[in-house]
């Protein structure tokens, strides 16, 4: 039986899209995806995701690697994540979790957020996408410079 297990499926240059009605609320691009059909996990290389953000515009995130839990609709981005939450606001962290059902981005790793003349650092981050409500936790530091 073991010999009949399906081998991992390797796809190059993939693009996945999630739609709610006429709104494309999720787009995932990866240079390569290795899909474990049995484990229902897709390992991604050179990942780029775009999340619909309403009036604030799309949220763009990229990372060298990622993992898509196809059973739970949870996407992990790893290996140095960088993104833009809205024009003029960028963030970086080591690892990020996107939970499609709750519409949240979460990092349990040190995070840095840069706005014009404002640097924020903290131990962890949680971002509610719909409201663009940002929570930072643990050793929060904000440095505000005059224009």
């Amino acid at each position, binding site marked *: 039986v073991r010999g009949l297990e399906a081998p991992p499926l390797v796809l190059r240059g993939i693009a996945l899209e999630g739609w709610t009605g006429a709104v494309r609320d999720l787009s995932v691009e990866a240079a390569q995806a290795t899909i474990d059909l049995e484990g229902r996990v897709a390992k991604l290389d050179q990942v780029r995701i775009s999340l619909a953000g309403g009036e604030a515009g799309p949220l763009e995130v990229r990372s060298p690697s990622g993992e898509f839990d196809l059973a739970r609709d949870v996407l992990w981005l790893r290996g140095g994540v960088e993104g833009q939450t809205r024009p*003029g606001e960028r963030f970086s962290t080591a690892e990020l979790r996107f939970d499609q059902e709750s519409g949240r981005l979460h990092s349990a790793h040190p995070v840095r957020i840069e706005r014009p003349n404002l640097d924020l650092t903290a131990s962890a981050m949680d971002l509610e996408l719909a409201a663009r409500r940002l*929570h930072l936790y643990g050793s929060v530091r904000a440095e505000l410079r005059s*224009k």
Partner: protein
Amino acid sequence: MRPRLLSIALHAGLLLAASGAAGEQPETAAQRLGIVVESGAPLEIRADELEALPDPSGRDRVIFQQNVRVSQGDMLLHCNWLEAIYPKRAEGSATPVGGQPERITARGAVRILQAGNEANCSEAVFDNQACSAECTASGGPATLRHGDDLIEADRIFFDLCQGVLKARGNVRIQARPPESGK
């Protein structure tokens, strides 16, 4: 020997020049009291938690909670909760307005330290444009202390650029008279 203290209790407003003319006139108790902020200096805020959200009015709000510490130049502020409100974004723009906030409200065991002055109150509101701060207290007076000199009032208003302070409501001053020959 304990310094001789002058105690005054007032129920009207009181305006004190805190530091503007320091060096030009003999120092008085009033001139020793006051808080001056280097408005161009970087502002650093540390806390255990932060919440930031775009306000529907087009302003960004950033709220710091638990163990909040603020420093700007030689001014330090401690409190439990702090809200920074930024100027309104350009019409139709999602780009956050950077730099220093337009208004900061600090609440809960607010303690401000600067150049030997210590102010304590339950709420302090800083207006960056007006270069002012108002310290109010509930369940006790707002206080400003410098060594043995003390001002207590319902409200203490600081001009952070001019170094002038104004005390309003149940004002009580405890000040050491200037020593002779100084």
